[in-house]
């Protein structure tokens, strides 16, 4: 389980300044902020804009275009289930339904106790050991009912 820092404007400014000299730095900054804080806090958007001489709207546009960036913290654990074709062919649909039923939430949501975020992901590149998932950055392949149940138990801790 990753540990994140609480949002701090000075720390945010430091992270932004660290990458300001790169060509086309917007995504790099957004990634770095999310890695530190677990999401991209709203006050960081105008800070990136001013560091890169962009409009706030432009940075907001980039931030919202990409699936990866969060505008609020995720649950304590993030379980991503691959929902692409190779995993579908190997029984991924039933496992996704099982995960949704066990957690009582649909894919793309966080449980009320904020312990588990369940998300779809479109391909982890583990298509020959499908179905696959990623729990807090750890990859798991050849999922079956027993394995998904173990992952779910871990994700609810």
């Amino acid at each position, binding site marked *: 389980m990753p540990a994140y820092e609480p949002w701090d404007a000075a720390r945010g400014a430091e992270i932004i300044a660290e990458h300001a000299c790169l060509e086309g730095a917007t995504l790099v900054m957004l990634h770095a902020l999310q890695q530190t804080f677990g999401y991209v806090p709203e006050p960081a958007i105008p800070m990136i804009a001013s560091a890169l001489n962009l409009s706030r709207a432009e940075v907001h546009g980039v931030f919202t275009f990409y699936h990866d960036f969060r505008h609020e913290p995720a649950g304590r654990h993030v379980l991503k289930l691959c929902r692409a074709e190779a995993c579908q*062919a190997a029984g991924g649909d039933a496992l996704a339904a099982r995960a949704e039923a066990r957690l009582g939430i649909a894919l793309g949501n966080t449980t009320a106790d904020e312990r588990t975020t369940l998300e779809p992901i479109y391909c982890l590149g583990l298509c020959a050991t499908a179905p696959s998932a990623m729990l807090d950055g750890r990859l798991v392949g050849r999922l079956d009912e027993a394995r998904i149940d173990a992952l779910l138990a871990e994700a609810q801790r």
Partner: protein
Amino acid sequence: MSLRIFVSRDAGAVAVGADEVALALQRAAGSRGADIEIVRTGSRGLYWQEPMIEVATPKGRVAFGPVMESDAVSVLDAMMSGGAHPLLLGIADEIPWLKRQTRLTFARCGVIDPRSVEDYRAHDGYKGLERALTLGPDAILADVTASGLRGRGGAGFPTGIKWKTVAQTSADRKYIVCNADEGDSGTFADRMIMEGDPFVVIEGMTIAGIAVGASKGYIYIRSEYPHAVAAMNAAIAAARRAGYLGARLGGSAHSFDLEVRVGAGAYVCGEETSLLESLEGRRGIVRAKPPLPAHKGLFGKPTVINNVLSFAAIPFILAGGAKAYADFGIGRSRGTMPIQLAGNIKRGGLFEVAFGITLGELVDDVGGGTFTGRPVRAVQVGGPLGAYFPRELFDTPFDYEAFAARDGLIGHGGIVVFDDSVDMSKQARFAMEFCAIESCGKCTPCRIGSTRGVETIDKIRAGERVAENIAVVEDLCNTMKFGSLCALGGFTPYPVMSALKHFREDFGPAPTRLQAAE
């Protein structure tokens, strides 16, 4: 004497327990007082045997697989005694599935330590660059053209022509961009080579830089591939330390350096102009062409943008292999293609072979049919934008033109196998749904058409005016195909139309029965 044991660090092997096996081997060796050295390699690509581990012997490397954590003790004993074991696969290079392949691009993958420049050099690495430095740009371009290499990302554009265009365009700066946004389901060759032999990608990009006069390159890797990002970053640092990147590389007058950039979960960024936008720090909105990236690419400068596998094919070609490369293949598809067998398949993995092998040979013979043991009903070739092929088309040879002639595409070489439990109207719906989720929004037929497609297929699945709604879907596909700038909107019709054409019975009740119900 120390026993050298090779355990894959490939994400696909790690996902099925390779790290745990490596630790268990270490523990088992400790308790026996055995002296072992564990080398973490890439994967050989026999994923049904992963975690596959190998031990160096005087006869060659001997493989075991699939080795679970609980097998570590007995496998170590068998390795030390040279005795029999139920998981013994024999000499790795002699495993028929591997021996049948023509591994030019993947020759070192699974063999070498991907973090070691020395190991790479000991296995013919950097020979292409060394020769390229003596040849100069014109002769490099001639070699790439002579090899017949076509872009391995899917479009199949001749690499030599692309590079020549950039070389002939004058500018104060030029860029080399590697497209490692391998988003197609069923494909993992880019990931494997980046994790298993990252230096071959670096070497290929460096040669491209010398050929066209570029000194900076970017590798854009999708965020879903953290292991590949780590492997590429480690390899770039190692190449720099060894003098193969940076100023006066390899003792020459050239300078070239690389940087890894990480995507953020947008499938459309695998499209080259969208990728360039993303690299520039913007929304991944597709650009209209012309201008071509070769003329105005990254930051408006002439840019070579190629897939990982295209760059990875270059070192072999430049090491004097242009003719040998071109001698493989059929028609206008020259060389080898790293084909990826995935989904519901018995023997899934990476199979590099000359163009021309048939789909049936790949699925039935090489892949061994389905993992579930049920009959193969459909295969999707070329990712989410590729057509679904029924068994009747299994005689199609793996070749860009042959697949196009049958309303399909080979794309990035991924084959996803489905058994007879598949509902093809559901797969067609998913193709539209995926397009709706991933559309960048620039072209109306893709942005809106995909959502209308989902709704219309839902109506068909509910048995609502099936014939009329199928006509609507066909019309929609036609509009998307011709009215979208890039392959996302333009090719989503392939899976939809092929499902309709070859698996019509899955789309709602037959029209006559429906009329009776009304």
